[in-house]
């Protein structure tokens, strides 16, 4: 018999923080996935909110494209505050 679909589980530790990927599990539908996520991934008060996404709906960038996609950001150092040299006397900036 086939497995139930695979779901990715995201948990928000506390309000104010992002949901974070914590793992996956199998469930037949979203309701069951949420309950299973609660029972599996929040046994130690790890969360206040859960998202589940069926794994087949997650689209990922291709690791082969890593250089093409992400390395062009390497030399855009002017996006970082430390790029700018200001005199020490100038405060609050």
């Amino acid at each position, binding site marked *: 018999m086939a497995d139930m679909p695979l779901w990715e589980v995201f948990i928000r530790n506390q309000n104010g923080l992002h949901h974070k990927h914590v793992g996956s599990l199998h469930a*037949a539908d979203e*309701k*069951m996935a949420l*309950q299973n996520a609660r029972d*599996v991934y929040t*046994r130690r008060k790890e969360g206040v909110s859960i998202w589940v996404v069926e794994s087949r709906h997650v689209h990922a960038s291709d690791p082969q494209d890593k250089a093409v996609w992400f390395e062009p950001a390497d030399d855009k150092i002017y996006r970082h505050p430390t790029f700018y040299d200001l005199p020490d006397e100038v405060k609050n900036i």
Partner: protein
Amino acid sequence: MSASAITTGLLPADYREYALRLGDNALILGQRLSEWCGHGPFLEEDIALTNLSLDLIGQAQLLLELAGSQGDDTEQKTADELAYLRDADAFRNVLLVEQPNGDFAHTMVRQYLMDVYDEILYSELIRSGWQPLADIARKVLKEIRYHKQHSGDWLWRLGQGTDESHQRMQQAVDDLWFYTPELFENDDLQQRLQAAGVAPDMASIQTRWQAGVLPALKQAGLRPPESGWVATGGRKGHHSEHLGYILAEMQFLQRAYPGCEW
């Protein structure tokens, strides 16, 4: 007689008895569910069943502690003494909770019938005039509400899943249905507790229970059996044969090695 006994007409033994009824229901159901640990139908549900068991045994601990704290020093007992050193005839749980797990259908039907009952009962008990019980009820209620979502979903899924699951669920309903009237028995103690504002009116609990359970069964394509034999006796300590075996197993170490610390 204590001051509260004068105003309520209740004796420490009455309070103890009521806490035992609630605590023993939780303990025996928790013990039954713990038998599933490691044997669930799939890993996720194995974990979920253990959560139910953990909640229930935790509830039993609080309720039995409350029961054991009633009366004078000579009568007081710990939760463990009550759980491990009473014989079956001193247990006050309803017969439904001691019924064997059977297949997953029997376990989930038993669970659902109890969860609906407990949700209604504890949503009243949070207003109990007996403050320590009301405090426990608030914690219990949160746990039970989740249990009911879980067992309610299973009722629906399995009731109309496959022919086999439907048939198994219907069989479970048929087998367990006649254990439910006992949940609402309105004996002398129950009436006195109600009069004193400690416990709710059982007739209204029953009405609400039926209003919850009957439509849910129908939605799941299940129906209660017509009529038949009705189980009773738990409140008086007259149990089914199953309880003796549950206790023989549960109490083994305390009985074989009395007075030890573990």
